[in-house]
């Protein structure tokens, strides 16, 4: 492009777009570009589809009749064509996924469980993300003493064996879904923190951070304008995996009997099935349904995370 010597210094009187429109236009184009790249990954699309299906499933739990989940509301009619003697009942025309030992529809349970399990996963991941990102960015950006203090704290939390901790906390605080979310969240943030710190250290060295300081930016301005946006992709990719791990963790804890007995999650379903001896009595549907859901959801998250990684890394490379 041939650039001429500017004749005068006054700005030309042409249309000038408003600053806010520019910001949103940029966000739109960036999002479109991201979507185009994501679409190219078959695995990523598969994962996304599965995820969307399960989220839809979770939403549909609103329409589930709550009475279907209550053990006391089970009647002869509700379990037809099964009878009380044949419980748990194999999949049939009325109960597509069969029933559990109390006569409740496994399908209804799975749908309800999807909502709770996914919510637990997202909530725990949110805690992890927020704490991990804050600690990571502060430690990476401020360095020196803050870095040492924060990182040693992180190490401390990292080495806590979360299972014994969960058991102890559950014993003390009671078996409560919120306690569970807290436990998972507070024991998962260290690895996120380390990741974010590493990324912060690398972003911090870029010249544009120095330029920002040369322009007069305060530390918080530098962090919000430059560090955070460039660390976000890593945080995001990590969060996707954290959700998956959180769901798995919750299932594990529930399976071990630490879950909230008042709520239905996939983990509590498996726990109940085991307690009732589902394997010995051959009630495979009761175990298979929730287990398959867990596997599929975790797989979906992993696939999405994989696709995201591919997008993030070549971007850095091409720049």
């Amino acid at each position, binding site marked *: 492009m041939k*650039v*001429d*010597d500017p004749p005068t*210094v006054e700005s*030309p009187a042409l249309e000038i777009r408003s600053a806010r429109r*520019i910001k949103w236009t940029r966000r739109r184009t960036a999002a479109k570009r991201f979507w185009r790249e994501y679409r190219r990954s078959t695995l990523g699309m598969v994962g996304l589809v599965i995820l969307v299906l399960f989220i839809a499933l979770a939403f549909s739990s609103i329409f589930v009749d709550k009475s279907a989940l209550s053990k006391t509301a089970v009647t002869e009619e509700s379990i037809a064509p099964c009878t009380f003697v044949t419980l748990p009942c194999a999949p049939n025309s009325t109960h597509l996924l069969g029933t559990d030992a109390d006569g409740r529809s496994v399908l209804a349970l799975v749908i309800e469980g999807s909502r709770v399990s996914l919510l637990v996963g997202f909530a725990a991941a949110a805690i992890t993300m927020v704490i991990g990102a804050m600690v990571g960015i502060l430690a990476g950006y401020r360095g020196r003493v803050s870095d040492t203090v924060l990182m040693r704290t992180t190490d401390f939390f990292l080495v806590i064996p979360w299972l014994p901790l969960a058991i102890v906390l559950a014993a003390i605080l009671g078996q409560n879904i919120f306690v569970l979310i807290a436990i998972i969240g507070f024991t998962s943030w260290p690895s996120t923190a380390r990741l974010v710190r590493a990324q912060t250290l690398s972003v911090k060295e870029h010249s*544009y951070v120095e*330029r920002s300081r040369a322009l007069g930016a305060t530390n918080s301005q530098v962090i919000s304008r430059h560090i955070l*946006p460039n660390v976000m992709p890593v945080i995001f990719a990590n969060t996707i995996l954290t959700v998956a791990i959180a769901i798995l963790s919750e299932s594990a804890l529930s399976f071990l009997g630490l879950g909230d007995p008042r709520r239905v999650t996939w983990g509590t379903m498996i726990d109940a099935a085991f307690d009732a001896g589902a394997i010995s009595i051959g009630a495979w549907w009761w175990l298979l349904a929730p287990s398959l859901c867990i596997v599929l959801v975790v797989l979906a998250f992993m696939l999405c995370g994989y696709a995201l990684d591919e997008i993030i890394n070549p971007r850095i490379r091409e720049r």
Partner: protein
Amino acid sequence: MSQAEATTARPPDASEPEVVVEVRDLRVTFQGRVGFFEGLRGKKGTLSRAVDGVSFELRRGEVMALAGESGCGKTTMARAIMGLQPVDGGEILYEGKPLPRDLKPYRREVQMVFQDPTGTLNPRQTIYEIIAEGLRIHDIDRGPNGEPEEQLVARALSRAGLRPPERFFLRYPHEVSGGQRQRVVIAGALVLEPEVIVADEPVSNLDASVRGEILQLLMKLRDDLDLTIIIVTHDLGLAWTVADRVAIMYLGRIVEIGPAEDVLLRPEHPYSKALLDVVPEPGGLERPILTGEPPDPTRIPPGCRFHPRCPVVASGRAAELGIEDRCRTEDLALQDVAPEHSSACYEAFARHGSDATTG
């Protein structure tokens, strides 16, 4: 060729030089790291005296070139003037007053142009946002005449030669060429309407044929906006092209400073002479090249810091003049050897009859 169009930049008014930035006996030292246990035992890291007592003035409207090889401290000096590098001694005065603790208002007066245009621009920001950042950091939402932000950004882009500016608003840095990126960096500095620009190797990362444009732009800005510019460079040819005054640095000190014609054509310090000798030219390889170890800021020689490599000492001329002892043992400061032209060399003092007092 742009020669016909290039305006011959006018040198600043020499009669009443107003001092914009003054540096007095500036010192910046870096401490090397030691292992944890050694630190406990009291061992300290090696001290690197990157800037070791520099004093000079920057006059309004001039273009000064700060030249030297890598390790001489010129980049550290530039960053210290910008306030990006903490100093360990001496002071920096802006318009006669020392720099305040809160440097934010200072930043509106003194801006920087960096060496690598690609690394200096955040790849996730549009060019508009990159330029507007300066305004937003300083909470400037209107210009002095009530202009909105968009107009200020457009004006800065225009002044930097990117026209029509709107075409660049939504572009990303990697979508424009190297020369244009550097113009974006310059526009980003201009948007705050500074008085002084510190340019650190502004063209060395650009393709050779593009450099002239950017240098032309800097000179034009100096003329049109009455800017003062200090350019850090290792390229003396560049200094010849754009600078009014040249300061040569060696191992943390300025060893010679004066008008560009004087320093580059009639150098008064053996190091300046050596640097000029090695500028490539046909048949140039026949000329003398300095030997000896390259300068190391952790091991600064006693006396004149250049004496171990100095051809005047090595050839015996220093002994002839009776100054060799002083070269080896007595540190020295800049002294005038001609009007406006100073050097830190006993041999030059002897030739010009300056009083050789110790520095």
